[in-house]
């Protein structure tokens, strides 16, 4: 599955990329919500494959993760895209806000690779033959 990893930390993008690449997912990186949204718009206009999954940081310059989730949910052509927040924001109220905006899952940093795999399993996104 084509997956977007959206985080302003290069190191964090690399960590997440390694986890999902092990599952055979292809990865597109973006360093903030605006860059990610620009990429998605170009795929929609160009008729190329849109990502099926995005791992989204919250605090990023230009467009933060919550704004990105809201923007994706406002675009009917991206309805099938699964959105997972991966962030240091750990207040209960923040998790509720992200879910209300349309995020499907939420992982709090720091996390272990198993946490990402477990959540993908919950979302039914693990490839056949891969166990959580």
């Amino acid at each position, binding site marked *: 599955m084509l997956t977007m990893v959206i985080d302003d930390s290069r190191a964090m993008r690399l960590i997440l990329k390694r986890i999902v690449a092990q599952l055979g997912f292809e990865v597109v990186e973006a360093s903030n919500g605006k860059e990610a949204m620009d990429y998605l718009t170009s795929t929609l206009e160009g008729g190329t494959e849109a990502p099926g999954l995005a791992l989204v940081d919250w605090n990023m310059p230009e467009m933060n993760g919550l704004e990105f989730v809201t923007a994706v949910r406002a675009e009917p052509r991206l309805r099938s895209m699964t959105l997972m927040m991966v962030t240091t924001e750990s207040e*209960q109220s923040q998790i509720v806000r992200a879910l209300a905006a349309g995020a499907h899952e939420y992982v*709090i940093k720091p996390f*272990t690779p*198993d946490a990402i795999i477990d959540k993908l*399993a*919950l979302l039914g996104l693990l490839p056949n033959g891969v166990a959580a």
Partner: protein
Amino acid sequence: MTLTAQEFAFISGLVRRDAAIVLETGKEYLVEARLLPLARQLGVATVSEFVNRAQHRPEPETHRRIVDALTTNETSFFRDGEPFSQLVSTVLPDMLTRRAANRNIKIWSAACSSGQEPYTLAMVLQDAMPPGWSFDIVGTDISQEMLGRAEAGQYSQLEINRGLPATLLVRHFERNGANWRVSPALRKSVTFKRLNLAAPFPSLGPFDIVFIRNVLIYFDVQTKRSVLQRVASTLRPDGWLFLGSAETTIGIDDRFERVVTGRTSAYRLRSAPKTAPVSALGKG
């Protein structure tokens, strides 16, 4: 310092005697890794020295803590996912027809470690049970320390990240400093008890559904058989049993039959009535 064969034999004998768990030669690394924190806690520098002391100055409390340390296994919320889906899609509808008269379902989560499985069951049942029904969940474990953690219902950030859907986290947990605590309402629906699966079960059950997952794999065939025999005696005749994905009753206890449900299996007693009583249908 590495354990000597004699020291390892003492530990494996102790764990076998008190918990019926088989520690074969080659598991020295496991013993060292699990006992080192305990040794340090008691002010002893090496595992070898700690084992020697335990051997020559036998104290029941130290022995209990050794067994505790070696029988604590990994767990997580919604571990392996599928059994919980099958509980909702196959087992509960069956139980709802069979228990329509008293509208209560009793579940046992055996070897529940720090409590993630019984709390997962409580979250699942709270959503899946129709109004007017109640459920009771009993979580048991051999380790007093794990039961203490389970009762407190407090989990670290790393633990709640594992397998717990975010929607359930915000509904059933409260932030408590750096940790998260199970809500009082959910904690009230689970009772915890200390139980050694390898010894007779004192006044436990009867249950409609038993989860005993990823624990039989540590026992030899004879112990597996006697544990399953005791589990069978706590299970209502039409109840359901869930084992771990690498475990089975086949070839161990023929009273059970495997029922394939979705991508997993559950077990029932062969003597179970095959259909729910007709008089109960339509009352749920």
